[in-house]
């Protein structure tokens, strides 16, 4: 399998919210990177994970599948998943695959965080 062309940085936003800044390509190959980010967020006590797709450059169906796997893992721990920073193109893909029914999409970080802290 090819090397993941993605970088994911975790920021703790307080009150059990962690933001994962995603930069690069989201494909099946980036599963170890995403799971490492998830574990880092979880270690910080995150109850809600907010994915920042502002730096997303490419995504294929393997990447969508990986997000579903992340969702299963988060649901098992009763954690919520949210997203922001999606371009119209990627927002449409979330809607097409009906991933938006399980991952709440916000327009920007401020609205994602304020919803999380409410």
């Amino acid at each position, binding site marked *: *399998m090819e090397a993941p062309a993605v970088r994911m940085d975790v920021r703790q936003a307080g009150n059990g919210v962690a933001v994962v800044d995603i930069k690069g390509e989201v494909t*099946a190959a980036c599963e170890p990177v995403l799971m490492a980010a998830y574990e880092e967020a979880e270690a910080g006590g995150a109850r809600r994970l907010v994915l920042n797709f502002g730096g997303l450059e490419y995504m294929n169906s393997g990447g*969508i599948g990986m997000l579903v796997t992340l969702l299963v893992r988060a649901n098992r721990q009763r954690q919520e998943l949210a997203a922001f920073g999606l*371009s119209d193109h*990627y927002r449409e893909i979330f809607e*097409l*695959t009906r991933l938006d029914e399980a991952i709440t999409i916000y327009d920007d970080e401020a609205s994602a965080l304020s919803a999380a802290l409410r």
Partner: protein
Amino acid sequence: MAQQTGPEGVTSGERIGLSVRESQAHPVPRDAGSWAAKVDRLEAPDRAGIRGTNVTGRRLTGPVQGFGKMWQKTYRMNAGTRCSPQSAIATWKAHFPEFWPRGNRFAGPLAGISPGDVALLDLAVGGGVKLSTGVFVLNADEDSFTLMTPQGHMFAGWITFSADQSGLDTFVQAHVLMRANDPLYELGLALGGHRKEDMFWMQTLTALGERLGVADPVVDTRTVCIDSRRQWRNARNIWHNAAVRTMLQTLAAPFRGRRRTQRAS
């Protein structure tokens, strides 16, 4: 003057009228041409020789909308050194129905497989029973293509067909991410449906391997249960169950035919 276009004929932000700022904030991604446009409900065209029921008006379903345990299945075959991953995928896309096991029909557009296409299926589910359903081409490029299922299909999810290179060899694979769509299908999968599905894709890959010139195709299967919980909130998906509906449609067909004849006379 020569015009520059991106991969897959993607139009630049400037040409579709975005402002410089918008264009820089979200440049047109290179996967833009490989994804289907958003659809709310499927429209199934009429195709000769196939029933084509249980597709029109159905919504697409992913693992989030399914009912049963979530499975990830990978069927992988070494296709040798004779073909590149791109030529293997080109062959697979161009002749997709020809590799299916006997008794099953896939009726797609004549032009192969492109994002947004809807294909109609008649599947043999055992005991002489046929299931009429369909699939939607979610994504397709030169390295892979993905089919997503509608409401009523046996499973909610998608299948990605891809090829890659490892050393000098090209490998082809079918990767399924799925949940049974409703409790009836979940029971069916537990009572031999999974084994039947494994056979289906192994036979498909074997047929593809033979077309690609592999002397003795060997298919490796890897199955992982991603989520052992069932999503009971989706149990009502059974309303759309295409197996039940196909059976009812088959039973009702003679009466519908008679009524048509009466109306015509």
